């Protein structure tokens, strides 16, 4: 278990609150994410899971609180800066570039890895062209890993939902992130697709050492693959710990099943 190692904190969320007008999406939420673990955020619909992810990724600026990433305290950042610092993500509603094929979608994920300057890129000269080939190889490796060879040149808008989700995962992996944020990667999938996705997530975590933050509202899937779990309900953290601890927490059971008032 990752928690038993000499662990190192990658991301520290400290007393984060987020409001939209009068709606409190997150209230005073704190937790740590250790390097190399699979950390899950679960909770009923509307609990604030995606909002939490959006705060980490810089889409939303928290109303209060701070985030410490790689030892650097920050109040907020832009999504582009988050990407530069090694945070990649997938979206709850698939956000692919629909007109492009699978390869091009994955190549956009390599964007920050490309070093040759804008002008060279524009004219597609010398170094830029070689670079393109190198990155193409990296993308092909990801395609093999995710077993999507057969759809390499298909415009992603034509793909069924499950495969779109897999391409989106591929695009995030193409950036070789330090921290990978997955927003309901298994929503809308059948059992076989869910098992595949679990396998990919575990492989990425073990082979590349990528730290993963996973959001799900389906508890059963998460419990099997997570090192640690926090539970949100109405924007507040109600439980935290190893999957077994959380599963047996009375507050969590109440949140999921409802409770007589």
């Amino acid at each position: 278990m990752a928690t038993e190692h000499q662990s190192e904190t990658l991301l520290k969320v400290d007393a984060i609150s987020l409001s939209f007008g009068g709606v409190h999406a997150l209230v005073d939420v704190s937790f740590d994410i250790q390097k190399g673990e699979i950390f899950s955020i679960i909770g009923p619909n509307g609990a604030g899971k995606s909002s939490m992810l959006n705060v980490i990724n810089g889409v939303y600026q928290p109303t209060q609180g701070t985030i410490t990433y790689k030892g650097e305290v920050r109040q907020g950042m832009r999504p582009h800066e988050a990407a530069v610092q090694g945070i990649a993500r997938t979206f709850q509603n698939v956000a692919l570039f629909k007109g492009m094929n699978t390869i091009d979608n994955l190549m956009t994920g390599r964007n920050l890895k490309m070093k040759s300057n804008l002008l060279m890129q524009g004219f597609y000269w010398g170094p830029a062209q070689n670079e393109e080939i190198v990155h193409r190889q990296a993308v092909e490796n990801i395609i093999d890993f995710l077993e999507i060879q057969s759809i390499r040149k298909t415009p992603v808008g034509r793909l069924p939902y499950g495969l779109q989700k897999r391409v989106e995962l591929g695009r995030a992996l193409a950036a070789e992130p330090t921290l990978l944020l997955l927003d309901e990667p298994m929503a809308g999938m059948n059992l076989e697709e869910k098992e595949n996705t679990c396998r990919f997530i575990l492989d990425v975590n073990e082979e590349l050492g990528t730290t993963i933050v996973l959001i799900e509202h389906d508890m059963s899937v998460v419990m099997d693959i997570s090192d640690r779990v926090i539970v949100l309900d109405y924007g507040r953290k109600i439980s935290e710990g190893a999957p077994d601890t959380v599963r047996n927490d009375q507050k969590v059971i109440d949140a999921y099943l409802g409770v007589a008032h």
Partner: protein
Amino acid sequence: MPVELAFAIEVLIAGLLSGVMYSLVALGFVLIFKASGVFNFAQGAMVLFAALTFVRILEMGVNFWLAIAIALAVMILLAVIIERVMLRPLVAQPVIILFMATIGLNYFLEGLAQGIWDSQVHGLDIGIPDVPWMSILESTNILISLFDVWTAVICGVLVLFLAFFFQKGRIGRALRAVADDNQAAMSVGIPLQLIWAIVWAAAGMVALVAGAIWGQRLGVQFSISLVALKALPVLILGGFNSIAGAIIGGLIIGASEKLAEVYLGPIIGGGIESWAAYFIAMLFLIVRPQGLFGEKIIERV
């Protein structure tokens, strides 16, 4: 060469050459459409703004090249301001909202251009003589305007430059990514703001060249902003997101409207040059709504 054939070739060439100028205006639209999925209603106003700025600086007695450089700098500055003030707050909003914003921008720029400078007609001479190409005229009896040839060369170079720059590799991909999904583009680290500023600056540069060339033709005045309307059929024909489409579409529209005017005009009473292009565009919409080179939009239902 028989006189009739020479005349037909003359008409065709004149049409193709003026088509290049349509391509140029259309290109301004294509660049912005490619990078944001938005039809920039203000492109015509940008042409007016660029041309007025250029001609007024020139009238102050500034050197020709310096005046171009200043006008270009103004257009780049304008692009940066538009990105900062108008586009940035509208990130990830539906395309129709951005479109509405460009309508507002259109009226703002028209007013601003004529407010800063004035609304008189200004003659503009960019130093290209409007005379026939004598050696061709003497050897083949075909009359070709040197002005048309020169502008076609200038437009052609600019078009090739932009096509090369924005079509290939990483930048081309980044543009399409930004147009498809703002949020996702930012999440993979594409600097959305920078891309937008670059594209609007390029559109501003195109507007300046178009404004200068059309300005010598028509004089720099308010109606120059209406040349943007000429780009519409070109875009429909070529496809809104294809640079190659803008070029080919411009040539087809230019040639066919001149030929139609000369050969169909007398039969149905003349004056069809002004609407022939729109008629062709309409026929095209029925057959191939995405245009010759446009991307077909895929939607899973």
